[in-house]
């Protein structure tokens, strides 16, 4: 879905640049888009994602705020009712826990509880931390919470193109959207179309094709899945890799269609296992695709613990490509080595790459 007629020349951008690009395009094309959050106009511009916005669009539309996550979420709701399209950002999802009443009792239900008269087109960007000592209160992935609330949409893009296309779609969606950016993705590169490029919410993207196992993934886990799937191909195991992109509404058709082909399902998640969306997908696949499944659905998620800070304690803690390979191997009943895969990794286990030097 492309709205404007601008040419869409792809360029190579980082994920953070793609987010920034989407914000520029949205704000330029619609004066009702506003953008605020702690630090949007500071020298770090939220990892570069809000760069240039205040200079270009002024401090009425782009502004810093008091440390008051709850009220500022309500302000977004009210501004949206008043005709604006607020885009709010939090440097970590964890800070947004202060605003659950406004999100759930307000934003999610406004359209419903007033009989469909008003909508709340807000977009809330939440950054997911991981590793490098981010620890128990800077690393939570709570998309399962949001997906459990009727009325909310939840977007978790993996690559720069999707980050841009889905952010534009989120901003112009009439519903409240949680837009989750994994910190480990901000520096990944990819080709990104120019202009008002939108990708419909609620559609998964098939990143790899195969008939051995359906792998359903989202956000950073898809990066690990890509390594795993490409490694598995060397052993002639070909997986279907579905990157969900939107966690709510979820693209059940795509999931079930793939399971119909492969008969085997592995779901990945960045969140704690119990109560995860990976569980929801496994459950619904079992319920709806019972006769299609050749073996039990599987999931790989974070263990049910808070993320500790120490370099020592996070060693081996996060699910990675080798775990995915092992799970697929078990599903298809093969022995597949992972040494090469592991050896290829040169940066310490707690950083996404050389570019990440801390502190957050």
């Amino acid at each position, binding site marked *: 879905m492309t709205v404007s007629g601008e040419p869409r020349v792809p360029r190579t951008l980082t994920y953070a640049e793609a987010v920034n690009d989407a914000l520029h395009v949205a704000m330029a094309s619609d004066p009702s888009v506003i953008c605020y959050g702690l630090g949007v106009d500071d020298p770090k511009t939220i990892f570069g994602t809000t760069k240039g916005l205040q200079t270009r669009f002024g401090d009425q539309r782009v502004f810093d705020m008091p440390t008051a996550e709850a009220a500022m979420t309500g302000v977004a709701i*009210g501004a949206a009712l008043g005709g604006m399209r607020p885009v709010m950002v939090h440097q970590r999802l964890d800070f947004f826990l202060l605003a659950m009443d*406004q999100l759930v009792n307000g934003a999610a239900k406004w359209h419903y509880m007033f009989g469909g*008269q008003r909508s709340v087109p807000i977009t809330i960007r939440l950054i997911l931390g991981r590793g490098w000592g981010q620890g128990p209160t800077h690393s939570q992935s709570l998309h399962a919470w949001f997906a459990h609330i009727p009325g909310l949409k939840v977007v978790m893009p993996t690559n720069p193109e999707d980050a841009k296309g889905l952010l534009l779609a989120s901003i112009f969606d009439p*519903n409240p959207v949680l837009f989750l950016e994994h910190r480990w993705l901000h520096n990944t590169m990819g080709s990104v179309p120019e202009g008002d490029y939108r990708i419909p919410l609620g559609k998964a993207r098939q990143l790899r094709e195969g008939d051995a196992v359906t792998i359903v993934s989202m956000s950073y886990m898809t990066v690990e899945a890509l390594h795993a799937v490409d490694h598995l191909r060397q052993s002639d195991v070909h997986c279907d890799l579905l990157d969900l992109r939107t966690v709510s509404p979820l693209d059940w058709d795509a999931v079930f269609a793939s399971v119909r082909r492969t008969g085997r399902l592995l779901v990945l998640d960045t969140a704690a296992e119990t109560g995860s969306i990976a569980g929801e997908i496994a459950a619904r696949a079992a319920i709806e695709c019972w006769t299609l499944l050749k073996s039990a659905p599987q999931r790989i998620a974070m263990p049910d613990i808070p993320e500790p800070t120490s370099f020592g304690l996070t060693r081996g803690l996060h699910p990675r490509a080798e775990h995915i390979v092992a799970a697929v191997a078990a599903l298809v009943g093969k022995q597949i080595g992972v040494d090469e895969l592991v050896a290829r990794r040169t940066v310490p286990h707690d950083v996404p790459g050389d570019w990440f030097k801390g502190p957050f």
Partner: protein
Amino acid sequence: MRATTLETSTALEPVLARALLFQMKRIRFVEEEIARRYPEGLMRCPTHLSIGQEAVAAAVGAVLRRDDLAVGTHRAHAHYLGKGGSLRAMLAEIYGKVTGCSRGRGGSMHLIDLDVGFEGSTAIVGNSIPIGVGLALAAQLRGTDQVSCVFVGDGAIEEGVFYEAANFAVVRRLPVVFLCENNLYSVYSPLSVRQPPGRSIHGLAAAVGLATDHGDGNDVDEVYVKTAAAVGRVRAGEGPCFLEYATYRWREHCGPNYDNDIGYRTEAEYLAWRERDPVMLYERKLVAAGVFTEAGIDVMQVEIEQEVSDAFRFAEDSPFPEPAEAFEHVYC
């Protein structure tokens, strides 16, 4: 609580005075009628009446322009009506009918009438406060001269979100009026277990950075005059303000009954406030001033009763929404 109506209040234009009295009497009658019929069990939702508190709603509603915005709380009937909200749609909503202002999804605690800028009332204490501030932000950004009125109770100001929202409103000089009805109670809890002794709410608001005023919430003239002055300043771009009016809820917190017997407040306290019934006081004042005759008031009462009974008939006669409708409008 003051013993008498403020003598200092400006005598209002007769047309306006008439409108204020009419609105107060109308709200009173609607609420009394809800209370009377509630035990029938057809209004099946938590319902918080404003009987005793009509002056604020009537005066504030009269001050605000139709295109000004307002958000309310669990106790919103009076504010909604004062702002001009449809009576029929409100009653139908309380009856859970498809003709209700929220198509039966929200009940008494979730009122909306977009035609008159009543943008919604919500049931979570404090929840609508920042939303009202956000409406003001939108008005400011769009360059309109609308004012957003945020109705709050003395309990709601204890929520952190009030403080956060007020601070932001001051920082951005937003066109918001925080309108606090201090009725001394939050459910059954007196102020003493919730707020420091001797600390005034408007004093607190002033320290947050809001312009403030306060007054006798049972004197509709006083509320009108003070609110009009404050709203004028807000509309002129002088930044947000906080108005605190002292008043009293006559009946139980939620539901139709009197509850002075159950122990959290005294009959004497209630009677003292009842002495200062805002409707009766104003009626007497206007009759004394010759604005009305007793007969004129009777005519008014008849008009009100007709409108209200018609509205109840509308609500009762309207159909329920189809069960399947429950699945609509989850997303837009």
